[in-house]
């Protein structure tokens, strides 16, 4: 049974990765939020499994915090943002989506190779997932780069944090509780600030297209 549980960590890791890919391929903002929520669910499940297997109780708490924050609070906030800003329309991308995904595959190969030697040093139960976590981070970064609107960028940022969190949980059995709580509040504060920021952009330029920010440059 515990073997199956250990394998299920790999499964959740792959689910995270596939969701990160799906975010790159997705044009609709609403679906992006749903995917992000799903990523949160996978993260919570993985954390619970790691907690159960290693018997580290603080991981249960961080799973609870993650659930409250990433599955409930932030998606609700994002929903309200897109309703208030009325930005449910399709996302514009810099490259076309197949090209972006091809870049994604290259990033995955890069991440997997990079993580190989590091993972061999780790003794954690799910050290193989380090590469996947790294790939998630890079994919989210890619998503932030290629999206032209502010909301998908914020989602990309949050998804990147998911990847980092997962790396910490899976590869090193979690960070100290106080650090995790700190990060959780940071993310919350971050999203609030970004939310305000988005309203400001909107008021200034009547659009959420961040290419307008280029006008702010002083010549």
């Amino acid at each position: 049974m515990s073997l199956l549980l250990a394998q299920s960590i790999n499964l959740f890791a792959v689910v995270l990765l596939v969701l990160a890919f799906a975010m790159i391929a997705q044009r609709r903002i609403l679906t992006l939020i749903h995917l992000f929520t799903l990523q949160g669910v996978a993260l919570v499940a993985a954390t619970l499994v790691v907690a159960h297997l290693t018997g580290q109780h603080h991981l249960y708490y961080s799973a609870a915090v993650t659930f409250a924050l990433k599955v409930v609070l932030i998606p609700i906030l994002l929903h309200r943002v897109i309703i208030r800003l009325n930005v449910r329309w399709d996302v514009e991308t810099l490259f076309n989506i197949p090209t972006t995904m091809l870049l994604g595959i290259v990033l995955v190969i890069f991440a997997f190779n990079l993580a190989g030697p590091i993972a061999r040093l780790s003794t954690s139960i799910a050290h193989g997932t380090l590469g996947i976590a790294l790939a998630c981070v890079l994919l989210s970064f890619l998503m932030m780069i290629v999206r032209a609107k502010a909301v998908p960028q914020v989602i990309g940022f949050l998804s990147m944090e998911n990847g980092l969190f997962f790396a910490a949980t899976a590869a090193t059995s979690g960070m100290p509780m106080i650090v995790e709580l700190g990060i959780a509040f940071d993310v919350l504060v971050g999203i609030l600030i970004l939310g305000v920021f988005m309203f400001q952009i909107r008021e200034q330029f009547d659009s959420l297209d961040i290419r307008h920010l280029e006008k702010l440059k002083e010549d």
Partner: protein
Amino acid sequence: MSIGGILAQLLAIALALALAPLLTGWVNQWRAWLQNRRAPSLLQPYRVLHKLFNKESVVADTASPLFRIAPYIMFGCMALACGIAPTLSTDLPLAPAADAIALVGLFALARVFISLAAIDIGTAFGTLGARREMLVGFLAEPALLMVLFSASLITQSTSLAKIVETLTHQPFAIHPSLAVAGVAFTMVSLAENARVPVDNPTTHLELTMIHEALILEYSGRHLALVEWAASLKLFAYSCIGLALFVPWGIAEAGTPFAIVLAIPVLVAKLAVGGVLLALIETINAKKRLFLVPEFLTTAFLLAVLALLVHVLLGA
């Protein structure tokens, strides 16, 4: 090769030929129910086939012999595909003749012939359908191959029968790469079987149709064969999916009773699969044609991702 094996092989093909229209009818029925419509009878596809076979075949003046032979070739290819996909038993004498790669080639062969037949008439619709069908095909075919490869890498074999045997024999394990491959396979199957969100099997709207544009000129017994072959294709894809992702319940060599038991198991699995297919078709909207390559590229790259995950995790 044993007598039992040959019997099992013949039984598998006969069962596929008999059950394939039923599966189509089942999916149609559920689709209607899920969409709050009154459903046609489960046996409707058989009636349609019977009617079509009895009608005279109207062939265009401009058709060459290729047009008339293509439905038969498509039908033969799909029959062989159902013969080598492990449906009831893994003891299939035909299985060594065509492994997973040849199976993909078989589907491609059928596609090429039916597309050529569509071009043959020389109307705008036929060529349009052929072009769209080949467009779907050139992205779906490598994706399907990569899905099968991820199963091959786990089991160290490209023979479908052997893949199923290995997957059922080894202790139950979660293969994350197979999970990714499963998503890709679902997407490919939808595209290859002309289902929503790629194509709509019931549409005749020229802006969107793919498969129906392809077979627009067929009538009578030729159309019956094409429809039957399409049912067989859906059946073959379902069985491949079941064999890769839910391999349990398929009989092995030298167990005659297991085959008898395998029939209800297969029917049950197909029934569940059919409902899922109807559900997917109901909750999705049809994509614009220009978005289809994007959809299929996603499937292809997911399948590649499955292979990469396999290499990383070694499982």
